[in-house]
């Protein structure tokens, strides 16, 4: 159905936007309303859950929360925990298309790392698949990586194969607090480099104080968390070990979104964490970050977007959430389109109908 609608738009040259649950529909460069919205709401089947193989096949419109329930019943998880938006509605297709991720990325990677195969519909009517349903495969080009994070500008994602992981039996979190950004950054870095195995290593900063957090898992989670707390204490942080840690991480996730301020995703580096926290602080903003990966989400007043970019140059600062008029007044992507990316776009979307004007191509 939706593949046919795409083909029809391609033939008629009608601009279209793909919509999952619409939780990130505003992201990207604001563009005129599309002529057609292709909804993935009906693509809502969990096609396979292969417990023994730790894989699953999901149609693009499956809400992640629903899939997780099923995986969880088998002691498994899709290690992808971005904020799921209003009502926890975010779909697997939407999260993959935006390349969104949460704290678990520390250990398990981003959507690109968890997608094993993908079926897409292109604007000239082609329906094609790449990858496979096994966790290891190098036959053919890895087109799923190209489509992950492409914001629905290359084609419609119909179905994906994802890799699953066992859910740790228990998780415990070590948290270290301080009002000194250097100490927080040092603690997080020391933990990132420690030989302990971590599920997540995050940082938060806001209102003059911050914290480094390390989550560990498994049968011996408590022992490991105590070891992690010692690392954080060594950096001069005020530490605590938290057994019931759900809320701590819900806060990290939720801080990646804002309904009234601007949220910017900074592609930075681990060693720049303290500088990033200071910049956020000086502009009246707050931050959460994946410490070892160097990615931060800074929330601030929309008027300070340009200031943050100046402070953190040359690191790209993409505007995710912000009022539409603000996003229309600046380059949300902070990036120059490349001729190669343009050629890719032309080849995959020859009709030029997929979300024109919303992405840096």
């Amino acid at each position, binding site marked *: 159905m939706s593949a046919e609608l795409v083909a029809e738009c391609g033939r008629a040259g009608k601009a279209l936007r793909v919509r999952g649950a619409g939780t990130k529909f505003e992201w990207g460069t604001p563009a005129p309303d599309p002529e057609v919205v292709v909804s993935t709401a009906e693509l809502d089947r969990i096609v396979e859950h292969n417990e023994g193989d730790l894989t699953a096949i999901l149609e693009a419109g499956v809400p992640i929360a629903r899939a997780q329930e099923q995986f969880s019943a088998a002691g498994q998880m899709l290690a992808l925990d971005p904020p799921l938006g209003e009502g926890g509605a975010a779909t697997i297709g939407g999260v993959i298309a935006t390349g969104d991720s949460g704290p678990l990325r520390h250990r398990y990677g981003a959507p690109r790392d968890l997608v094993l195969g993908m079926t897409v519909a292109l604007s000239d009517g082609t329906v094609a698949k790449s990858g496979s349903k096994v966790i290891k495969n190098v036959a*053919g080009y890895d087109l799923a990586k*190209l489509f992950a994070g492409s914001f629905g500008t290359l084609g419609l994602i119909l179905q994906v194969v994802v890799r699953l992981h066992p859910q740790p039996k228990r998780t415990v979190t070590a948290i270290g607090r301080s009002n000194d950004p250097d100490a927080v950054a040092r603690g997080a870095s020391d933990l990132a480099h420690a030989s302990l195995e971590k599920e997540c290593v995050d940082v938060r900063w806001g209102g003059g104080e911050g914290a480094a957090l390390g989550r560990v898992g498994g049968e011996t989670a408590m022992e490991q968390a105590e070891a992690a707390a010692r690392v954080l204490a060594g950096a001069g942080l005020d530490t605590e070990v938290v057994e019931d840690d759900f809320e701590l991480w819900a806060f990290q996730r939720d801080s990646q979104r804002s309904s009234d301020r601007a949220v910017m995703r900074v592609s930075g580096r*681990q060693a720049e964490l303290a500088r990033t926290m200071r910049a956020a602080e000086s502009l009246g903003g707050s931050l959460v970050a994946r410490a070892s990966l160097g990615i931060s989400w800074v929330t601030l007043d929309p008027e300070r977007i340009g200031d943050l970019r100046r402070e953190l140059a040359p690191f*790209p600062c993409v505007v995710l959430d912000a009022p539409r008029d603000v996003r229309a007044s600046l380059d949300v992507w902070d990036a120059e389109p490349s001729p190669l990316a343009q050629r890719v776009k032309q080849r995959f979307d020859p*009709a030029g109908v997929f979300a024109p004007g919303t992405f840096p191509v």
Partner: protein
Amino acid sequence: MAHDLIQKLREACGEDNVVTHADQLRTYESDGLLRYRVTPRAVVLPGSAREVQAVLRACHEAEVPWVARGSGTGLSGGALPVEEGVVISVNRMNRVLEVDLPNQRMVVEPGVTNLDVSKAAGPTHFYPPDPSSQIVCSIGGNVAENAGGAHCFKYGFTTNYVTGLELVLPDGELIELGGKELDRPGYDLLGAFVGSEGTLGIATKITVRIVPVPEAVRTLVAFFDHTSNAGRVVSDIVAAGIVPGAIEMMDSLAIEAAEGATHAGYPSDAGAALVVELDGSEAECEHRFQEVEKLCEDNGATSIRVAQDEAERQLIWKARKAAFAAMGRVSTHYYVQDGVIPRTRLPEVLERIEELSKEYGMPVANVFHAGDGNLHPLVCYDGHTEGQAERAEELSGKILTACVDAGGSITGEHGVGYDKKRYMPRMFEEADFDAFQRLRCAFDPAGMANPGKVMPTPRLCGEVPGPYRQHPLEAAGIAERF
């Protein structure tokens, strides 16, 4: 024309770095898969990205196809030269440019070996993808093949560790994709390049992520009467939510060969050997290791050897890593494939391999990455008897069919290259190839980069279709397209 090109290559890289003498060209006739041989017109060894640019520009102008080459250990004929084409060896570009521990990154040239990358990260950090060929194979070749290794079930593959690439496109343009930072805005062209088997351009600089060395490592090898017992252990380990650093299986024939070559102390009458390595936090590792031992016992292990120190651990691994090379003791020739299956289908696929082995009267040894279902069936044959090589190949093809029928793949880490392109239609359909070709055409519209590989049939790139225009008949309301 030909002479002109060679002259240009010499100007670009220096006289000494252009090989045209027949004897010397022979070294480059094949990669690790010696079955196929093609003599190139010339081999050029650029020493810098600039020189690679000059070489590709010259080839582009002369419309001469080329093949990049790292260490030539590939097992799918990926670096097999193109008839009358140029081989571009990046071996001279072998410097570690930067070890940036604070940011957990390294920047290297493509000719650095996999092992040297990991060594430069040590002793506190390491680079996880560890192909068995790691002493020799190049990081550039790893990027092109998306190489895996024993530790990839837990840690992931090359593609999960490359964060930045400098590369030269087939028309000579130098571009950068990604960097030390993640999630740069724009398409993940880097993700599409990794595993592209030298068909999109030449990587001239590679930025990788490195991770801290785990606190503890515990290794054991357990022996069983039959692979089905070992297979059940693997399933039980996964069902228990344990993610081993590595989990590798060998069958009786592979054990016999490896033991003969290494004297690692594997009982030569064992039906199966299972190497299990756990790593991570000390407490967790210790706890779960006991569980693994118990699962081995429960499934009828005839004996279990636990490495007491690093030397013993190395000995356990020595037999596993030598398995390929050791096949020479059992058979004059062998043919290796690396099909993948969903792990739960292991018993039936192994049975099918046994059946085929009997039917063809050719022993098949099995060595595999059991965690991710990546088989390495080694088909033994007598290459001196006419027709045997062809029959071995036929048998291998049937094994790959069994893998695909079970829902798997024709290759887990060696790549499609030249050897397996004919099997691609077993996994993909025309529309899928069409989508692959779009990517290829965006990078290499003239088709000069490693042509004749990956795709089952040669394809050309048409012009990019322009934006849709309404046909005059439609405009006039005479015809419509729906």
